């Protein structure tokens, strides 16, 4: 029996901003919910090629495919690393969002 294909999306970093982007229906998007999902090897190849075109066109850096699960029509990365990347932020409050609880009155 053929190995079941896990859905994938293509991701990269934006050349100028450096943040995580995903290839959507009409270009690179920041919200993984708008990413194109490949459901077969053939579709994955198409996505990979489109990702490389994004790098060759100097829009993005380092495109690669990531596995996703599709829940209620929304792609969600399988790996923790990619979940954190897709969120666009660290998992804890950072920088100016950190409360300075010990600040003197």
């Amino acid at each position, binding site marked *: 029996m053929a190995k079941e294909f896990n859905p994938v999306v293509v991701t990269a*970093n934006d*050349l*100028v*901003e*450096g*943040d*995580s982007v995903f290839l959507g229906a009409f270009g690179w998007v920041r919200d993984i919910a708008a990413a194109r999902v490949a459901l077969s090897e053939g579709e994955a190849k198409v996505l990979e090629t489109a990702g490389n075109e994004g*790098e*060759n*066109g*100097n829009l993005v*850096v*380092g495109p690669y495919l990531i596995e996703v699960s599709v829940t209620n029509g929304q792609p969600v990365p*399988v*790996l*923790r*690393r990619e979940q*954190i*990347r897709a969120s*666009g*932020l*660290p*998992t*804890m409050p*950072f*920088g*100016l969002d*950190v409360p*300075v*609880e*010990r*600040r*003197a009155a």
Partner: protein
Amino acid sequence: MYRYDEFDHRFVNERVAEFRDQVERRLTGALNEAEFKPLRLMNGLYLQLHAYMLRVAVPYGTLDSRQMRMLAHIAETWDKGYGHFTTRQNIQFNWPRLKDVPDILEALASVEMHAIQTSGNCIRNITSDPYSGVAPEEIEDPRITAEMLRQWSSLHPEFTYLGRKFKFAVTGSEHDRAAIKVHDIGIQIIRNEAGEVGYRVLVGGGLGRTPMIGKELRAFLPKADLLPYVEAALRVYNLHGRRDNKYKARIKILVHETGIDEFRAQVEHEFATMDRAAVTAPEGEMERIAAYFAPPELATKPPAPVEFERMQKLDPDFAQWVERNTYAHRVPGYAAATISLKPIGGAPGDATAEQMRVMADLAETYSVDAMRVTHEQNIVLPHVAIGDLYKLYRGLASIGLDMPNKGLVTDIIACPGLDYCALATARSIPVAQAISNRFADNKRQREIGPLSIKISGCINACGHHHIGHIGILGLDKAGVESYQITLGGESTEDARLGDRTGPGFGYDEVPGVVEKIIDTYLDLREGQRETFFQTYRRVGMEPFKEALYATAD
């Protein structure tokens, strides 16, 4: 501190202009990523999980208030309002945009700073003792040697493309606060039997996936021979170090595989036959550099002013801060004060622009305008009159940086981990925060006593986990974060690598695991003065293993 001469200014400004041109060409597509990547790395610019990251060099951790204010300005203008001080005494900005980086570098150059050689397979920022020029037991300020090495290694034509990165650390005291035994080359300033000052040179230490303690290369090296000798060592490494496998390319692997005696013989042969005069610093150069590090003129003051004693009685929190966060100064009436960047539940090493500005103001007012970044991710104000300590302390309290926890369980070192780093396999900062929250009670921290927890989010060990009394290494096990624990590591002159407890633990389990380890120590220690490290060395791993892995009947 060292000030740029005309050559330094011109060199750094030319480098900024060059990188501005390279960025423009990248943005227009004239350079592709494969061509641009090595260029940006040479200027300290990485591409991380969520954004570019710029690593700015702080040579041997020394900063003045003008520079700290510029770091605050950069954080506010081109980043998200904060920066992250690292275990290499540098600072990293986590969110710059590519098009802004040339402007950031220009701003840095205006205060004699840059990001050159903070990445790549070259000689990196040279680290040193944060109490340089302060510690009473110090033989000589190690920053003079570090600056000499910095000048020698900057754009060194032979060593710009080494097999792998190369890290130096220098200490001027017998008590090692610069972790010299876990550096590619560690240098200790010593005095020989004839009373001459020179160097003890160690080689082949390092952490990462193959941690090793450095071995003695030369027991005593005359000061004048410093540059030719390290040049000889680098030549042997450059010639024989592996380039076929990046994981075996550090000098520690070469020294380990060659054997220290054979490696030493090769270095000594190179040293004996090379044109030493071509490498030796010109006469008077060491003295010229030393003049920049001349001790500030500090008027002798009373060691315990009445007001200082009174405020310690009135404000017990201040008394605790004095006990934990200050260090004796060679000049009576002064102390070095550590600003802990480890507030309870905070991200180790992070400081907001506001905090940077206040630290700069406090340094200018109370510390002869001097600051040091420590490899433990704190800031030291090196020259504070004891009579000013309370005012300093209150100033720190106004920005939430008055934690009296230096060297205690919440003074945790942590790398950025999977929240920022593209190489990471697990999160570090939230683990540090959870442990910090668990041990928030100050009384409990003091009862536990000196204890270092060091956390790395991958095998590359930027969080120095191997040399933590409790080391925590985050790994990925089939998509799930798993944390290996080591015990009994140490970073000082007694440096040793920690021993693994056994199988790893889940993300949520780590604070409880640390608590079990500490409770076991508290049960086993012989009196309150026996530290965690001493107890571990006395009783070994077994009782800790028992506590962590024994299953309930």
